[in-house]
């Protein structure tokens, strides 16, 4: 209970046991006829494509490159390249070109990437991570090598196994199964940054994964497994660093000497640098109160959501299809989109209609904002188009965590209005320039 500050977190229901009741499902490879890769990045810049229609590819063949930060894309199946198709790109919300690969079900592997030893130099490790196209697999999709490029004074690598979004258990399952890989990947990242220690953060309730990680980390005295309270949004960088290090930073955690990476990303680092394979498949949680047999499923990258959902029984109701968790994800229009490497979950929820009443001015949103903002005042300034006040209230620091709408007793769409306020402010600022 804080006196004047924002509390910044709240206990929300987790619903995690739903997807853990069943065993990990491995999708029958025969069901994946095609895989799709979007050829336009999130900033609307097209990717450089290395293959053309008719080319034969293997598992792990480099097929495209994102210009910004040079992130390569690799094929997840072996087969033939088909014509480029337009499909819904769920990240941008609009259709765009997709590279289509027809699966020949042989899963022939490309020759592995160059393996890197742990005693290699910093620059070699970072280069290898870049070559392998490792991105933040917690959902951010940020190229990992950029975080480690030319960094100084880093003392800790923080491995984020918190997974605070309700319904999601993909990180939990992959940590439990591949704890050793997490630790191994973490050691590479530690070497890449020149850090002196590694902290693996996991929530208090996840005993199984925690124990596996502790076991795997036991031989290494500079790797510590730390348990953090079960609160939302503990998985957000700032909240996690505030909880563990009791420090705040302005823009990047490297300002206080910390680099954060998701645990599944650490596994990908191990896979790439030790076994030479890029990201070709991942565990996806399909859950939600509209899914009868929620479970985790191993799928190749580029699979259609449709194919995944065919494995599950969905209730005959109005549902919202979320790519990710219920708090931060935006709903998808239909099931025709393809999952990329960073999409770790499909959540289907029954649609609930909320009828908002007048704002009670209770201040709960302000009291719970993890970024310390005042949504109620921002909304007021937004309605009044008061740009100066919007800037003074530091509107652009909002990360859409969704806690403000969650706690609002009047069921006002606070997060939605925050997004609109941000858009408005950005447009205004770009116009001023």
């Amino acid at each position, binding site marked *: 209970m804080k*006196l*004047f*500050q*924002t509390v*910044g977190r*709240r206990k929300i*229901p987790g619903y995690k046991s739903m997807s853990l009741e069943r065993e990990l499902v491995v999708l029958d490879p025969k069901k994946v006829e095609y895989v799709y890769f979007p050829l336009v990045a999130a900033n609307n810049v097209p990717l450089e494509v290395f293959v053309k229609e008719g080319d034969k590819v293997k598992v792990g063949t480099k097929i495209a490159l994102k210009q910004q930060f040079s992130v390569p894309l690799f094929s997840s199946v072996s087969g033939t390249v088909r014509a480029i198709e337009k499909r819904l790109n769920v990240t941008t919300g609009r259709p765009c070109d997709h590279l289509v690969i027809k699966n020949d079900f042989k899963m022939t592997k490309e020759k592995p990437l160059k393996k890197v030893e742990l005693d290699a130099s910093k620059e070699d490790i970072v280069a290898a991570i870049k070559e392998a196209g490792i991105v933040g697999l917690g959902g951010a999709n940020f190229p990992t090598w950029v975080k480690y490029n030319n960094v100084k004074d880093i003392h800790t690598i923080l491995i984020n196994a918190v997974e605070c979004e*309700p319904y999601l258990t993909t990180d939990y399952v992959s940590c439990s199964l591949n704890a050793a890989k997490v630790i191994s990947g973490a050691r590479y990242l530690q070497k890449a940054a020149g850090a002196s220690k590694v902290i693996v953060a996991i929530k208090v309730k996840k005993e199984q994964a925690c124990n596996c990680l502790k076991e795997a980390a036991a031989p290494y005295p500079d790797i510590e497994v730390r348990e953090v309270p079960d609160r939302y949004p503990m998985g957000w960088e700032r909240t996690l660093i505030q909880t563990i290090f009791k420090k*705040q930073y302005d823009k990047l955690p490297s300002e206080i000497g910390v680099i954060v990476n998701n645990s599944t990303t650490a596994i990908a680092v191990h896979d790439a640098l030790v076994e030479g394979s890029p990201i070709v498949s991942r565990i996806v949680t399909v859950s939600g109160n*509209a899914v009868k047999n929620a479970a985790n499923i191993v799928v190749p990258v580029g699979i259609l959501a449709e194919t995944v959902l065919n494995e599950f029984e*969905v*209730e005959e*109701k109005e*549902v*919202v*299809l979320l790519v990710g968790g*219920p*708090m*931060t*994800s935006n*709903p*998808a229009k*239909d*099931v025709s989109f393809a999952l990329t490497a960073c999409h770790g979950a499909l*959540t289907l929820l029954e*649609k*609930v209609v*909320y009828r908002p*009443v*007048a*704002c*009670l*001015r*209770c*201040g*709960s949103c*302000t*009291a719970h*904002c993890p*970024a*310390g*903002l*005042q949504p*109620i*005042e921002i909304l007021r300034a937004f309605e009044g188009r008061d740009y100066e*006040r919007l800037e*003074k*209230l*530091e509107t652009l620091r909002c990360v*859409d965590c*969704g806690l403000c*709408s*969650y*706690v*609002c*007793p*009047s*069921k006002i769409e606070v*997060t*939605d209005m925050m997004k609109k306020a941000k858009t408005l402010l950005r447009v205004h600022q770009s116009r001023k320039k």
Partner: protein
Amino acid sequence: MKIVSGNAPFLRSKRTTSQIMMELLIGLAIIFVAAVIYNFTLGVRYGLKTICIMTVAILFTFISDIIAGSLRYNKEKDGKFDEYLIHFIKSNYSVVTAVIFALTLPIGTPVYVVIIGSMFATLVVKHAFGGFGSNVFNPAALSRIFLALTFGSQLKAYLPGGENIGGLVAGATVTSQYAADGVKFLTGSLANTNVSMLDLYLGNHSGAIGETFTLLILIVGIVLAAREVINWRTPVFFLGTVALSSVFVSLVAKVNMIEYLLVQFGVGGMVFGAVFMFTDPVTSPTSNYGKALIGIIGALINVLIRIAGVYPEGTAFSIAFVNIISPMIDRLITGRTNNKVWVPATVSGVMVLGSVGLITGVSAAKMPRVAPEPPPIVEPFVTYLGSYTSPTPSEYAEEFTTNVEVGLSDAYHIVKIEYDVIANPDNYKKVTDGIDAVIDYYTSISVAEFKALPVPALSEGTTGSTVVGQTGEHIIPGAIYSSRALYEAINDALKDLNVYSADVEDYPYDSGGYSDETLVMSVDVYVDTVTDLIKVVDIKDGASTGTYADRWETVKEAVLSKYHDLDVATFLGYTNVAELYGEEVATYAGVTYSARRLFNAVQKALEGYGG
């Protein structure tokens, strides 16, 4: 499955505004039920009147809602009228206002006043400002102020015929009674009322129907705060600042600190206001820091009104004031709430200290001032008159005659001097301070000491200046003629008195045996030389040993009175103590040695008198 869209996030807390209002209503209902029960113990019509007030308030709030809804109804936009009206009434939560408002009224409020008040609260304070969520003022508080201003005399704490209920005199509330004598809340005492401290907290006294059961309100408040229905910061900072101020005010007013603190909390509607009216979320600032701030400011205003204001009860006014500044507080707080926490902490700390300081200062200023005691008028034991004609100083002044009246105590110390003229012309009397100092000096000495003073000498021909080398407290600086005139006049008054002094030394009897050290008794004997009578014996020192000092005090006057107007010759003829004191010597038991020593001393002093 049918895929539809929506806005993130898709999980929502189960807490709704309706639920918050419902829990608030339950808390209020508990207090209302307790009030009804208490009023039924006072009499059936009291209980019924309580229920009547609540019912009327709720009913007319409902009617006001319908009026406001009808006025706002816009056929094109709002759909069907009855659906619209139902939603309007449900989403405005006016029933909470009605209940709070009813609980702030005393039992004797006439029904028409309740009607006017509840309609004012809902129509004017709430709907005229925009309905739920947009009202600037707390409707219950402002309406209560409105009633206090317009129907103040109607808000009685008793029903007709029941003036003495609740143990109070003529149906006053505890608040006004507490302050009955003198400055309210500073020198008032619970003893004025017939209400004990326990009664105060258990609601067994008269006041508004909802505000008296302090203990229950506190318990309900704690439960509501734990359930996040009200924010705990406002009442805690409010009551904390009140407590801190009360500590300092009790120090200024020199009353029992704990009792004063408990009374401050128990009396009046302060705790009720702190829990239910200050915490109204619509009229409070939205940030945690702002909520704490209005608690502090509200406490400052409330305690100030209690101590220094005219009205006996300040809570409603402080609520209205705090409501005014809430939007300003909101507006001033920008930036992130987890940055620079020392800023709100420092500001709040300074405000608390400032409030406490201000309240302490005001209460100190308001303390009833005790007028300084006039100096006791000493009646002289005997008065002598004298006069003196001053010689004419050349050129500057004229001859004048001074008449004095010298008053002496029964030990022949000068206690009073009155004079008429000590300068001519009068403008020489501009040295008044000097004159007063000399008079003060004269009235502090004995006649014997006076007679020992040197005469103020005049230098030939020079007016007013003092002879070089002449000092003495009986000389007025820069006014030698006046000094001389005064001296000579007093001297003339006392001319018939002669002083005879003596010291007698012996071993006193002390604590069961003769002491090893000697005790010296010194006396001044005043004899009127015209009548040859001993007037007074003044024992300057050594009257008795310490052990017997108290005993001596009780018999001193009887012993000394033996010497008043005693003929000298007769006295010198006594050879034996018993001849002077007579059979009463037995009453001097315990100090017979002192009496005997006195006899010896006076005998020694008057040796050779008349020779």
